C-alpha cells in the first residue's frame, strides 16, 4: 500500500470527492486515525460487539458437508449469528462509535439489500442518532421486510428513483445528502468502497472477523487453513476475514463474485473476473467497475442484492494485481444449489451473498486433500432472503400463502 495519506493501494483507491466534502472527509480521517492509534477505542469497540452483537461469532465445523464432498475439511465463520444477522453490524457499530467521537447527531447510509440499512438504523437507535437511509426504488420493492424494520427502528427510508434505482444510485444520493449535511451528519458507508478513509476504515472494523477466525481455526485444528472463501460485493466481509491471514502466505484467499446468469450473459456483477470490469473512477474511488468503453456504468445482475454492485473495494482490486487474492465467480444457479446443500447438510441457512462463497468452496473442496482446511465466511443468514429463495426454489405453498395473505388484505380494506 503506497500512499496511505490518500488511501492508495497500488493504483487503486484515492479520494475522488467534490471539494465541498473535502474538509469533512479530512475531519473523518483525523478522527479515524486518532481512534485507530488509541487502543482504548478498539477495546470499547470490541466490548460493544461482545455485549451487543454476540461476538466472537463461532467457527463451526461443517462435518457433514466435508464428508459429503470428500475432500478438505470445511469450517464456517458464523457472521450470520451477529445481531441483525450479518457482518454489516461490525462496520456500522464501529462507525457509530466514531460518530459519537465526532459529536455528530445524525447518520445517513445507502443500502442495497437492506442489510446495511437495517444495521445502520439499529446502530442509530442504540446510539440515539437521527437516521436516514437511501435505498433504490427497485431494492425497496424487492426488500420490503428490511424497509419495514428500518422504519420501525426509527429511520427514514428515502426511495431513490435515479439511474438504475439500485445500490450505486443510493450511494450517489447519500453523497448528495452529505454535501449539504456534513456539519451534523456522518455518512456510514456500508462497505470497503468510496473515498479514503472508507475502504481502509471499513476493512479495519471488519478485521475483527479475520482476527477471530485465525485464532479459532488454529485453536481448533492446530494449523492454518489452506484456503479461505468469501463473497465479494463491495468487499467488506472478504477483507474482514482475509486480513487475518494476509501475512500467512501459505493461506490462499479466494474472493467470489456474483456470476449472475453467467459471465458471458452480460447479466452479472463480476468486476474482477469479467471482461466488463475496467478500471475507472466513480463513487469517490479509483477501482474496477462494470462499465462500457466510454466510462458509463452498466446495470449489474445478481440473485443476491448485496453483491449487485458496479464497483469493488480498491483494496481488493489491488490484491488482484498483487495476486494475493484469487477471484472467482459463482452463478445464480450454483448459488441456489449451494444454499440447498448447506441447509440440508448442516442445518445452516446462508444468505444468498454468502452462498457464493459456499458455492466456490463446494467446487474446490472435493479436489483438495482430506487434511486440508477450508474456511468459508458466512457473512449473513439467509432467512432474510425468504422471498427470493422461495421464488428461486419455486415453492408453490409459499406462493399460495402470499396469495391468501393478499386476499385477506384486499378484503380487509
Amino acid at each position, binding site marked *: 500500500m503506497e500512499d496511505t495519506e*490518500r488511501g492508495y493501494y497500488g493504483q487503486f483507491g*484515492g*479520494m*475522488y*470527492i*467534490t*471539494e*465541498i*466534502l*473535502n*474538509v*469533512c472527509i479530512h475531519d473523518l480521517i483525523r478522527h479515524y486515525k486518532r481512534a485507530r492509534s488509541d487502543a482504548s477505542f478498539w477495546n470499547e469497540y470490541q466490548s460493544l460487539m461482545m455485549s451487543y452483537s454476540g461476538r466472537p461469532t463461532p467457527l463451526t465445523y461443517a462435518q457433514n458437508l466435508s464428508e459429503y464432498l470428500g475432500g478438505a475439511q470445511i469450517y464456517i465463520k458464523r457472521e450470520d449469528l451477529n445481531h441483525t444477522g450479518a457482518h454489516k453490524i461490525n462496520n456500522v457499530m464501529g462507525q457509530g462509535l466514531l460518530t459519537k467521537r465526532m459529536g455528530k447527531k445524525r447518520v445517513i447510509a445507502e443500502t442495497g439489500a437492506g442489510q446495511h440499512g437495517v444495521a445502520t438504523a439499529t446502530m442509530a437507535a442504540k446510539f440515539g442518532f437521527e437516521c436516514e437511509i437511501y435505498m433504490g426504488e427497485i431494492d425497496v420493492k424487492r426488500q420490503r421486510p428490511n424497509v419495514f424494520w428500518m422504519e420501525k427502528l426509527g429511520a427514514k427510508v428515502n426511495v431513490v428513483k*435515479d*439511474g438504475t434505482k439500485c445500490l*450505486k444510485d443510493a450511494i*450517489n444520493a447519500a*453523497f*448528495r445528502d452529505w*454535501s*449539504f*449535511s*456534513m456539519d451534523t451528519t456522518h455518512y456510514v458507508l456500508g462497505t470497503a468502497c468510496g473515498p479514503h478513509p472508507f475502504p481502509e476504515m471499513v476493512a479495519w472494523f471488519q478485521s475483527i472477523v479475520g482476527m477471530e477466525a485465525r485464532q479459532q481455526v488454529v485453536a481448533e485444528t492446530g494449523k492454518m487453513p489452506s484456503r479461505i472463501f468469501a463473497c465479494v460485493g463491495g468487499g467488506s466481509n472478504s477483507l474482514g476475514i482475509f486480513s487475518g491471514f494476509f501475512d500467512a502466505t501459505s493461506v490462499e484467499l479466494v474472493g467470489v463474485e456474483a456470476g449472475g446468469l453467467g459471465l458471458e450473459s452480460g447479466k452479472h456483477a463480476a468486476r474482477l473476473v469479467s471482461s466488463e470490469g*475496467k*478500471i*475507472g*473512477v*466513480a*463513487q*469517490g474511488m*479509483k477501482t474496477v*467497475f462494470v*462499465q462500457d*468503453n*466510454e*466510462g*458509463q*456504468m452498466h446495470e449489474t445482475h445478481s440473485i443476491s442484492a448485496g453483491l449487485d454492485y458496479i464497483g469493488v473495494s480498491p483494496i481488493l482490486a489491488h490484491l488482484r494485481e498483487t495476486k494475493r487474492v484469487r477471484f472467482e465467480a459463482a452463478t445464480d444457479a450454483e448459488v441456489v444449489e449451494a444454499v440447498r446443500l448447506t441447509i440440508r447438510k448442516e442445518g445452516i441457512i446462508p444468505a444468498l451473498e454468502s452462498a457464493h462463497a459456499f458455492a466456490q468452496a463446494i467446487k474446490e473442496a472435493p479436489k483438495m486433500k482430506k487434511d486440508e482446511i477450508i474456511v468459508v465466511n458466512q457473512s449473513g443468514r439467509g432467512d432474510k432472503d425468504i422471498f427470493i429463495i422461495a421464488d428461486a426454489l419455486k415453492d408453490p405453498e409459499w406462493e399460495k400463502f402470499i396469495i391468501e395473505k393478499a386476499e385477506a388484505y384486499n378484503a380487509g380494506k
Partner: protein
Amino acid sequence: MLENNIKALLEHKKPLIMAHLVLGFPSFEENRKVVDEMVNAGVEVIELQIPFSESWDGPVILKANEEALKNGTTVSACFDFAQKIVKAYPDTIFLFMTYYNVLFAQGVEAFAKKAKAIGIQGTIVPDIPPEEGKEYIAACESAGISPIFLFTPTTPDERLKELCAYSKGIAYCVGRKGTTGIKTNADDSLIELIERYRRSIDLPIALGFGIQSKQDFDAIAPYIDIAVIGTKLLIVQQESGANGVGLFLKSLRQ
C-alpha cells in the same frame, strides 16, 4: 487562453453570464437551439455537460443526465456536437463539464487534446480534486486548456489559496453547501462568503448559487465576475423550450 479571454470580456461587461446545458438532453437538436438562444441573449460562457451515469448533481441536472444517456447519447457524439457548435459560435467561450471517469475512460490526455482540438477552452470536473488530479492538470496544461476547480463554502482560506495554484481562468465558486440546483438567498452571508473568496482568490470569480430570477441576479451582480446559471435554465427549457431559455437570459440584463 481562457483567462485572457475572460479578462478581456470583463473589461467591457460585469458580471458575465455562464450558462449550462446537458448534452443530448433532450436531444442535440434541442441543444443547438438552446445554444443559439444563449448566444443571442448575450451569454459569454457556455458549460456543456457531458452526461455521466454516476452524476452527483442535484435532481434536475441528474435527471437530464439520465435522459440523455437513455437517449443513447455517447461521449463521442458529444464531442462531434461540441465541435460543430464551437465553430458556429466563435465568439462564445465553451467549457466542458463532466465527471472524471468520462475523461479516464478514453485517457485523460486524449480527452484534453481532443477538447482543445475542437476549441473547448476549459473543463470542470467536480470529482477530481487537484490532489488526485496531477495527470489531469498536466494533460490540460500540455493540451492548452484550463482546468477549472471548485471553491466551496467549506473550503478554508488556506485551501482557497492552494486551489488557485491549480485553477486556470476562472474560480468556480459555490454559493452554498449541497449539490447543484438548490437556491441560495442572496443575503448578507452570501456576500460575506464572496468577500472571503475574494480575499483568497486572485481569479475571476464565477458564482453558482441557484439563481432563479432577475432579482437574484441583480442582488449579487455587483459582487461577482461571472454568474453561473444552471438548473434554472433546464427547468425553463422543459417548461417553455429553447425560446424560453433565451427570454429568461435576456431578462436578466434588461
